[in-house]
């Protein structure tokens, strides 16, 4: 019998048969991991089985490659965010992007830490939108599509980086961009750690990460479209800010 126990974030729940559910968890040591929750399709467990919830997962299976079964215990609920449309859109975007993009059973401890921190700060509207943008950058990085914002790809300059090439994902300085600037993606200063993010910078940043999610990540995952929850979050941010 193989077994482990670890705290994690619930990513998704799908009914399985009459009374069970197949859930996907994201944990520090086991990454995105699926398992059956007996009774998970019933009303008693419904409050626990909400995406974004922090739970303690105990997984058991006879063999390592079996789907296995989870038993779960609550750690903390994030249902307080249900009343805030922007925070709820953020919660849905984080969980659905992780469920969409992460390979199964591959640990991503850095991304896990960042995801939990982001989910915990969803109530604070002054900080979480930037943290969400940084989360998307980290997701691209973890999956091998990271952007190189360290220097200008044309001149090698480290100053005045203002654009990103939509083809290579590398930074371009304002001077080197010249007449090509309108064909490049704006690089918001907040992604270079320069001051707090303005609303315009956040939206530029999301346009930047959205481009690489659409053109790099999605094709690598079988050309499935990026989850609609992410699109709805960006639309909601655009209206709010």
């Amino acid at each position, binding site marked *: 019998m193989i077994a482990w126990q670890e705290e994690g974030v619930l990513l998704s729940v799908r009914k399985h048969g009459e009374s069970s559910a197949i859930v996907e968890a994201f944990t520090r040591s086991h990454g995105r991991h699926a398992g059956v929750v007996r009774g998970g399709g019933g009303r008693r467990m419904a409050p626990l089985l909400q995406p974004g919830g922090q739970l303690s997962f105990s997984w058991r299976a006879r063999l390592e490659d079996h789907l296995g079964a989870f038993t779960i215990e609550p750690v903390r609920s994030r249902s307080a965010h249900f*009343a805030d449309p922007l925070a*709820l859109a953020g919660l849905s975007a984080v969980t659905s992007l992780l469920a969409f993009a992460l390979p199964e059973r591959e640990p991503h401890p850095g991304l896990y830490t960042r995801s939990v921190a982001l989910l915990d700060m969803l109530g604070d509207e002054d900080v979480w939108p930037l943290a969400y943008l940084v989360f998307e950058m980290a997701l691209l990085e973890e999956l091998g599509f990271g952007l190189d914002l360290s220097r200008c790809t044309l001149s090698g300059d480290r100053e005045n980086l203002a654009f990103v090439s939509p083809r290579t994902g590398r930074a371009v300085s304002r001077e080197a961009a010249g007449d090509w600037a309108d064909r490049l993606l704006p690089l918001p200063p907040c992604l270079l750690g320069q001051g707090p993010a303005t609303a315009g910078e956040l939206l530029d940043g999301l346009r930047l990460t959205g481009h690489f999610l659409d053109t790099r990540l999605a094709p690598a995952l079988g050309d499935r479209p990026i*989850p609609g929850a992410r699109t709805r979050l960006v639309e909601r941010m655009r209206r709010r800010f």
Partner: protein
Amino acid sequence: MSDAATDIDDLIALMARLPGLGPRSARRAVLHLVKKRSILMKPLAEQMGRVAATARECTLCGNISGTELCAICASEARANGELCVVEDVSDLWAMERSGIFKGRYHVLGGTLSALDAVGPDELRIPRLVARLAPEGVREVILALGATVDGQTTAHYIAEQIEPHGIELTSLAQGVPIGGELDYLDDGTITAALNARRAF
């Protein structure tokens, strides 16, 4: 094996596909039907045939009915300016069982779901917005589940309805009848505390 036995097996297999029934309980139900052939099985078969021929979605609210407009939408008494938005027909029936709501309903046919790729276009949200002015709706009551998908849908609908200047309310969330605090999850306790009122 005789034809009759095959037919019975086919019936058991069909019954076992119903929610709440497995092969064993389906077998028990079929055996009961066969034993009560004249008083239960034949009327049931006839009634199922009639419902299969006539049941349809109400063109206005999405309720299941035998006519183009369901009894609730056809009743002038229910046109009191209150419109209750529910996820599914079973939710509408649950509300009707309580007997407390005297307005009309709108069945969405699901909720927005990132996992199942259900977007606004797959739901009956445009039809909801189209009903507001012609029916003189004063208040829209969002009676959707307290789940991530349910509340995401509620916020989306609120955004669609806001420009129409109609009052928007939602069902309260908190301690259920017979509920004890010790057994409630912390999300429910938070919602209940936030929605506290003068006693």
